[in-house]
Every structure is written in structure tokens, then in C-alpha cells.
């Protein structure tokens, strides 16, 4: 009988929680619809159009996709989402845009790929849409996006190279990530391991963990030979050692990857990977990192913070077991550093339905859609300041199962910034860095490999 009562209580609590989330979503949807109705632009000006929105298979996409019926009802525009796995998406995106195919109207974009795509006139600049009162509602409030994110997606192209901070807007952010160390509290507590703060501390913790439980992978990090494995752990930690991907020397851009700071970083980092990472490091992408931390096969991970959050959501096997900390810093460094990645929506320059595409971008990055996505537990790093001051979101994110997510987010966000130098040719240089990292982890001499890497980058500049 008590068991039945407990079960009923649990069931009622679950029903109550579901009802609360549903009513918040419904209220949000109703508010957005109502707000749109009272808006100063005609949301139905492209009624009957059909557009394609391409994106990575990602909870951020799920958050928008779940609200698509609202958009279709509001505008009369039909949206077809085309979602692909991460690697396949980026490769397909390059092919679609470079062949000037109009089949994708809106694409999911990251800032770094945009540096390589925009100068080829493959992305549509969005200023004229943002500044057109017939196309953009006054309530859209572009300045509500965090300034760092707006600045990062604004640049001009001068002589085929990027000049950041001013110029045209190339994409609108709809989610971002900062890099953190997240860990399984249950595992570290069980083995009495303190959360490491530097690579040497991490190496020592890994040795202790391995000797206590050889089946556990101490640290999950990406290692694939693609720039995505550099932009998370490697670049964040490297920056705290004083490493810069590029520096200006005698008025000219020059790689900083063969500097003494870079040598010191790589020695520590390679050592740490050898002691801590899975033997499958060279093939590990974010899927493996997330799977490891979720299943408890991995004790710690350095990657985008929301991977920890999503697995803390109530009902997940790891709910309440994942806690957050800043990324590792140099042993003699004063501060940690955290790179950011901005998921944003951009418009294909070859799209033949640009007006409808803009309405979609505007709606998908609106205050209400961002808030709805956040409260649904998916769009957790909203790029809008208004979301972060909204009580509904803050109450949700402060639930005990999310451990110290909000506090860590706030402390890391203070130091989170784009760690790469904006430039055309980003992919080529960073892919080369990822390959060099694999070579060093496989035993190649660190100094010689970095010299080779720097010379390869110089020859491609």
C-alpha cells in the first residue's frame, strides 16, 4: 500500500511537472502568436512559399523543429527541415553552397565555417533584412543578443580577408556553447578525486582513476582529424598557456603554433591525452564524448557545456550526476579560458525565397522561441540576454538535477570568448592542427611536429 501511494505521488508529481512545462510552452506559443498578431510587419506577406531549413542533428534543431507548426500557422510558409549527422552536415553544406544550389534556403552555421564561406559570396548578408521595417518587427530587438555574439558574426571582407567587429551581419545566433569541464560527481566522489584544474593535475587524476577502475575512461575529448576537435578542449586550454593560432608580426599575420608557449602547451596536453583519453581518441567525436559521460564509462569530459546539461535532465540515466567546472588552465596561468561556438542561422545566397527565409530566421531567433526552447531543456545556452533574466528559465535551470550549471555558466561566461583569429583559411589551418595533434599523440616528436605544422600553415597563407 505505501508503495502504491508512493507510486501515485510520483505519478502525480510527474503529471504536475509535465503540466507545468506544457502550460509554459503553450503560454509561450500563445504569447508569440499574440505578439506576432499585434506586430508591425505582415507575417503573411510570403504566404504559400515553401522553404528548406538544413541543420545538424542537434537538440538545438529539435527545439526549433518542435515549434515549427506555430511558424507555419503564423506565416502560411511551409518549412521542410533537412537534418544530417555532424560530419555529413558540414561536408554537405560546403558542397551545397559552393555549387550555388538554391535547394537549401536557411542553413545552420557556425562562425568559423562562415569565415570561409562568406567571402565566396555564398552567404547572404542580413543587414538589409534587419534594417527593413517591412521585414523585421520592432519587437525583434536585435540588440538583445549578447554583444560578443553579435560582434563575432559581424565583419567585412577586405581584400579577400576578414576584418572583424564591423561591417555586415552574416548570421543570427540562436544558441551558443562555452567550453567547460564537466564530470561525473558519483565517480569522482567514489574514488576521492578532486576536480583537476590544470593538465598535469588531470594527468595525475587519470592515473589514480585508472588504477582504481581500469574499465573507466578518465577523460572524454574529441580527437578526430577535423577542426572540430581543436575548437573545444585544445584551443581553450592552449589560450591559457598564451598560445595564439595567429599573431601579427611586422604588420603581417603569422602562425603562433610553433611558439615556446605552444610547445609547452602541447607537451602537457599530449601527455594528458596519452594518460587520460580513450584508446579510440583518434576516432572520437562529440557523439562518443557525450555517450561516455552519459553511460558513466567516462568520468570527465572537456567539451561544450550543454552536453552535461542535456544528460542532467530529469529521467535521463545520468540525471543529477553531472557537475560543471571551468576548463583546465596552464599550471602557471592566472585564469582559465573558454572558447565559444555560436550556432546561428544563415541564408544561402543562392536561395530564391529570401523573404520567406528571413521571416523564418527572425522567428526562430525571436525572444519567445528562444525561451520556449530553453524551458524545453534543449536550447540551453540562449544567445539572448532576455532569456537569462527570465524567471521561468532561471527557475528551470536552477533545479537540483542540473547541479551547478547556472553558476558555472555565469563564471565561465565572464571569460568565454572566441579563441580563434577570424580569417579566411580557418578550416585548412585548423584541420592541419588536428592532424598534427593525432601525430603527436601517436608518438611523433612534439617540437618537430609543431615546426612542420607551422611551415604547412605558412605555405598555405
Amino acid at each position: 500500500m505505501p508503495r502504491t501511494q508512493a507510486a501515485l505521488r510520483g505519478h502525480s508529481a510527474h503529471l504536475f511537472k509535465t503540466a507545468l512545462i506544457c502550460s509554459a510552452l503553450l503560454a509561450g506559443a500563445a504569447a508569440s502568436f499574440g505578439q506576432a498578431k499585434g506586430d508591425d510587419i505582415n507575417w503573411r506577406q510570403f504566404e504559400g512559399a515553401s522553404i528548406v531549413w538544413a541543420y545538424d542533428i542537434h537538440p538545438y534543431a529539435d527545439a526549433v523543429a518542435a515549434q515549427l507548426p506555430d511558424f507555419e500557422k503564423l506565416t502560411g510558409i511551409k518549412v521542410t527541415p533537412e537534418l544530417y549527422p555532424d560530419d555529413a552536415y558540414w561536408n554537405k553544406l560546403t558542397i551545397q553552397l559552393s555549387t550555388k544550389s538554391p535547394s537549401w534556403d536557411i542553413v545552420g552555421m557556425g562562425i568559423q565555417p562562415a569565415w570561409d564561406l562568406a567571402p565566396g559570396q555564398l552567404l547572404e548578408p542580413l543587414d538589409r533584412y534587419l534594417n527593413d521595417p517591412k521585414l523585421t518587427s520592432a519587437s525583434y530587438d536585435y540588440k538583445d543578443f549578447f554583444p560578443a555574439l553579435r560582434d563575432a558574426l559581424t565583419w567585412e571582407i577586405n581584400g579577400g580577408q576578414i576584418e572583424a567587429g564591423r561591417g555586415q551581419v552574416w548570421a543570427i545566433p540562436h544558441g551558443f556553447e562555452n567550453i567547460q569541464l564537466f564530470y561525473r560527481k558519483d565517480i569522482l566522489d567514489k574514488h576521492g578525486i578532486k576536480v583537476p584544474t590544470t593538465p598535469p593535475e588531470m594527468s595525475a587524476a587519470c592515473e589514480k582513476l585508472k588504477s582504481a577502475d581500469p574499465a573507466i575512461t578518465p577523460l572524454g575529448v574529441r580527437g578526430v582529424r577535423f577542426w572540430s576537435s581543436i575548437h573545444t578542449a585544445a584551443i581553450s586550454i592552449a589560450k591559457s598557456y598564451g598560445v595564439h593560432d595567429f599573431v601579427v608580426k611586422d604588420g603581417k599575420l603569422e602562425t603562433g603554433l610553433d611558439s615556446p608557449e605552444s610547445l609547452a602547451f602541447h607537451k602537457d596536453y599530449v601527455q594528458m591525452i596519452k594518460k587520460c583519453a580513450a584508446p579510440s581518441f583518434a576516432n572520437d567525436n562529440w557523439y562518443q564524448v557525450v555517450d561516455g559521460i552519459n553511460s558513466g564509462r567516462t568520468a570527465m569530459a572537456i567539451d561544450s557545456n550543454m552536453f552535461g546539461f542535456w544528460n542532467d535532465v530529469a529521467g535521463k540515466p545520468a540525471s543529477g550526476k553531472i557537475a560543471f567546472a571551468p576548463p583546465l588552465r596552464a599550471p602557471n596561468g592566472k585564469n582559465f579560458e573558454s572558447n565559444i561556438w555560436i550556432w546561428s542561422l544563415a541564408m544561402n545566397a543562392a536561395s530564391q525565397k529570401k523573404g520567406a527565409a528571413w521571416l523564418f530566421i527572425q522567428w526562430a531567433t525571436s525572444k519567445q522561441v528562444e525561451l520556449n526552447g530553453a524551458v524545453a531543456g534543449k536550447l540551453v545556452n540562449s544567445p539572448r540576454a532576455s532569456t537569462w533574466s527570465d524567471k521561468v528559465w532561471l527557475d528551470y535551470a536552477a533545479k537540483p538535477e542540473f547541479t551547478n550549471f547556472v553558476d558555472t555558466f555565469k563564471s565561465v561566461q565572464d571569460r568565454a570568448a572566441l579563441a580563434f583569429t577570424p580569417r579566411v583559411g580557418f578550416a585548412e589551418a585548423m584541420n592541419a592542427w588536428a592532424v598534427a595533434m593525432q601525430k603527436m599523440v601517436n608518438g611523433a616528436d612534439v617540437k618537430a611536429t609543431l615546426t612542420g605544422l607551422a611551415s604547412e600553415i605558412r605555405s598555405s597563407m
Partner: protein
Amino acid sequence: MDLRGTDATVTLQSSAGQLASSKDEQVQNAEKHGLDWWSLAAIAPAIIILLGFLFLFFYGIFQSLTDLKFGRPLVRFIGFTNYEVAIKSQDFWNSVRATMAYACSAVLAEALSGLALAKLFASGVFLARLMRPVILLPLVLPPMSVALMWTTMMDPQNGILNYLLSLIGIGRLAWISDASTAMLSLVLIDIWTYTPFFALIIFAGLQGIDHEVREAARVNGAKGWATFLHIELPLIAPYILIAAVFRLIESLNQFDIIFGTTQGGPGDSTAVLSVRAYITAFQNLAFGRGAALMVVNWLIVLLGTLAMVKLWRLVRQRVS
């Protein structure tokens, strides 16, 4: 003289006949050499498609002679610079070595294991007959699915291969995750996928050998191994070589299995030319340099194929 007259008469008669027939021939030739518009119309689509292919091919070669790259507003003709840069880099030669090592070892191992399988099928053993259709299954799988399947199986920590090895007391192997074992692992995947192709063709060759030939060898006292080595093997050699030609072309161009498993890594240990060309063009966005690598890959395939076809012709002549 008589003979000569007879000859003359015969000659005259035949000359008249020739005159008549040469007129017919001229008419026939005129008809033959006249434009047959219907025939031309019939083959026009094939010619257009051929020209289309040739255009694309030559366009690819043209691209390899330019500095075509994303973000570069102007595309310049730079001659053979892309080739010069490639040839001077160590990575390029590493890719050439990786391409040759992958293709040669895979084709050789597949030919040997295909031969063994075909011989087993030809033996008519019950189990071999049962396995014949099953063994062909890898051939019908898409290479990318094969790559994903093997990536999972070769996972050093959770893969089934290491589990099976642990049952017989063999320690964990890193498979595709270690530079020293990655190439061997890829060749293993290729062998698993394409050995049935060899087996199928060699089996057809074995079935084609006249039973009397084997019988004659047996009557002359040849044992099983000697019959295989001196009678069967020379007779099926052209079959083995023709299968090798097709497989060599595919292996030198192999992309799906390699990109789907290692993406050319760890480091550059499995960065064959096709993978390097793809990464250069579509990840590094340097299309000109990527095209140059593809042209080099094409040249290697062409030379390899010509050599194999020549060998096949020699063997076939010897057999016939």
C-alpha cells in the same frame, strides 16, 4: 601461247565483270560513305554523353591548373604550381605510399583468399554449397555502411573484435585508432568486403575447365596439388587477372571505407590520395589543389590498369 590466250580471254571476261562490279561497288561505297542521318541521330545521345563526360574530365584537369579556392575573388591560371607544391611535400608522397600499400596488399590478399574460397566452392562440399550465397552478402552492402559497422566492431574498448580476442587470451588491439595498425585494419575490411568478388569470378573460371583435362592429368599420375598448380591455375589465371584489374581500379580509388572509418588518420597513416584530395577540396576548401591530387590519383590508376591489362593479355595468349 594457248595458255596465254586462254589467260587473255579469261582476263578480258573477268575485266568486264570487274567493270560492272566496280560500278556497283562505287554505288555501294557512295551509299556507304554518304551521311546516314538516322544512324547519326541514333548514336547522338551517346556522343553527347561522352562529350559531357570528357568535358567534365578536362574541366577537372583545368581546375587543377588554377588557384581555385573559397574566398578568393579571382581564379588565376597557375600552370603546374599545384603539382609542384604537391610533389615537394612529404605528405603527398606519404599519400602515394599509402594508396599503393592499401591497393596492392588488398588486391593480393583478396586474390589469394578468393582463390581458396572458389576452390572450396568448386569442391562441392555440402557446407561450401550452403555458404556460397551467404558469402556474397558483403558485396551488396554499401561501403559506407561497411565502414560504420567495422568502426563499431573495431572500437578498442567496446568493440566485439577485442572481446572475441580476449576469449582466446589476446590483449586489446587499437585497430583503426593506432597509426601502426590502422592500415592493416583497413585492408582487413577491404578483404572482408571484396574477397567474394574474386571468389565469384575464379569459381566461374574453375567451372569452365573441361573435366577431360583434369581426367587426363589424373590418368597421367598427377595428384591433386599438381593438377591445381600445373593445370587449373594456369587456366584460371586470366580470370584472376581480370578480377584483379577491376579491384585494383577500385582499391586505388577507395574512399568510402577509408573516410568512413579513419578519415585518413591517425595522423596521416591512412591518408590515401582520394581522401587527401577530398579533404583538400571540401574541408580545406582548396579546390585547385584537390583537383591536382585527383589527377595524380587518376594517372596512378591509369598506369596500374594498363600494366595489369598487358599482363592479362600475355597470360591469356599463353593459355590459349
